[in-house]
């Protein structure tokens, strides 16, 4: 018997023949798409995997957050990821859904520090949409990382973490690829207002 089968009690066996995916992992984070275009993310759900692969590479929620989000309604498990402040980290190498605070190749130019944003509705304002819910941030203003005072870093990925211990205690919320950007001394990397878009069907 299939472990996921449900016996109705009258001899009829309901046997799933496809994965049950209540919240498909296509919660992409990507840069500033014009408002009308955001409906597109909903369409991706029904696309064959091969067709949507290139887009999926642009970003995703991290495993830590995906698990917490699903455990909350299914099992009523309290949301266990600290989130009073969210930290935006830059990387010089690819990151994936397993990103956490000890992931190697985080930017390391002199004076680099994670961008700490207070988790409130000023910076993470309510989103919009029904069939596809879309949220953009930072809602209030452009945000700056620390100005480099030495060394060089070519960043290609960004991740959002729930802590700044620099260890596995910092759980991953999400990640995305960014345009290859070389940061030299005197440069200030910035995240434009509403640069990050998060959608979910």
């Amino acid at each position, binding site marked *: 018997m299939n472990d996921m089968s449900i016996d109705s009690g009258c001899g009829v066996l309901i046997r799933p023949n496809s994965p049950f995916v209540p919240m498909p992992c296509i919660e992409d984070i990507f840069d500033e798409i014009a408002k009308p275009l*955001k409906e597109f993310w909903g369409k991706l759900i029904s696309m064959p995997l091969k067709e949507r692969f290139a887009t999926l590479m642009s970003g995703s929620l991290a495993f830590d957050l995906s698990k917490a989000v699903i455990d909350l309604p299914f099992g009523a498990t309290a949301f266990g990821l600290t989130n009073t402040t969210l930290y935006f980290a830059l990387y010089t*190498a690819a*990151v994936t859904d397993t990103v956490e605070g000890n992931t190697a*190749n985080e930017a390391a130019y*002199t004076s680099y520090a994670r961008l700490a944003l207070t988790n409130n509705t000023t910076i993470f304002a309510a989103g919009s949409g029904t069939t596809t819910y879309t949220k953009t941030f930072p809602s209030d203003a452009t945000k700056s990382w620390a100005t480099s005072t030495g060394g060089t870093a070519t*960043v290609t990925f960004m991740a959002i973490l729930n802590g*700044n211990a*620099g260890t596995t205690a910092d759980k991953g919320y999400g990640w*995305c690829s960014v345009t290859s950007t070389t940061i030299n001394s005197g440069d200030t990397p*910035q995240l434009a207002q509403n640069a990050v878009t998060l959608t979910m069907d």
Partner: protein
Amino acid sequence: MPRLATDGDGNLYIDQPDHEDHSKLVRYHEGSFVVIGPEDKSHNATHEQQVLVVDGTRDAESVRAAAEAAGQDPANFEWMVNAGNGENMHHFETQPDDPHYDENSPNLTKMRTLPDSLAPTITSHTDAWNSNE
């Protein structure tokens, strides 16, 4: 020595709750980080020469599909494409020169991690600067 964070408004500060100077503003100065007062110039105000916008990556196919899904003419949004034709190819898959490239992994990626005993001081930390000078 402590961990650092930045508040998005140009201020660098100590972000380590068990440190005596937790939440105090600092600024890089001649090889170290010094605590500054609220009236002093911030770290970024002191050192910034230019701003670089960290932009997301978008390929032609996803922009086209987005435009069509919204009933828009894709030609009007070609300016948004910044990945493809040799540009930002890491958007599509991990590139061979990427430190996390692994040809044996299904997604060509094997992220490396650092031990918790070491990771906190590698970056975002007052002790990290001297490895980059």
